[in-house]
């Protein structure tokens, strides 16, 4: 079946502009995660959503970053007033639900990522 999709695949923007990155999870998956992969920091957790519960935003690096998930499906990660240090690959993942994940009965399925370059 279809996997996690992300758009755009590449985004080049100027410093100070806002960007929106989109993630379409696997159909039926209630948990959705955002990660960032940069040269200096490796892979970092940003935020996760589980169903209608309040998201865990503990990984967001600053208040310029926000994410929402509409209708329990598609998610948008927004970065306001982008800085050069925001340049990275932004990865989205989904899983059936976090309870199964915790039991080791599921895993996170990753999308291909969006490569963001801030000039």
């Amino acid at each position: 079946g279809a996997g996690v999709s992300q758009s755009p695949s590449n985004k080049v923007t100027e410093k100070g502009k806002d960007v929106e990155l989109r993630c379409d999870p696997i159909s039926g998956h209630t948990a959705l995660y955002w990660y960032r992969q940069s040269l200096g920091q490796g892979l970092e957790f940003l935020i996760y959503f589980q169903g209608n519960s309040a998201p865990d935003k503990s990984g967001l690096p600053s208040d310029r970053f926000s994410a929402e998930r509409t209708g329990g499906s598609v998610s948008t990660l927004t970065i306001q007033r982008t800085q050069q240090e925001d340049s990275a690959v932004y990865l989205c993942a989904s899983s059936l639900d976090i309870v199964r994940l915790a039991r080791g009965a599921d895993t996170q399925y990753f999308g291909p990522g969006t490569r963001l370059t801030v000039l």
Partner: protein
Amino acid sequence: SQQGEEDPQALSIQEGENATMNCSYKTSINNLQWYRQNSGRGLVHLILIRSNEREKHSGRLRVTLDTSKKSSSLLITASRAADTASYFCATDARGDSGGSNYKLTFGKGTLLTVNP
């Protein structure tokens, strides 16, 4: 902050040889997983080992977990050129209530190059 640290950072072997990568982590974990990444893009899940398991096999992959040493190893047997990729371990830490905190924490990865 990084939970896992892979060792070595880079490994170059010939086709047919075995490749062993190690991962260490810092806190109590719920599960440990290994992922593969080609060309800096999407991650592909390889294998998951629960904290109460010590060894797991999947095809040419063998994973071990030593919770007393907070370490894991991934062995790829009879390597192929197509195995060339970066390999990451990822852990979901044990939460305050004893379950998972659901967030995967990744190491910096091992870049494996398999030469034909």
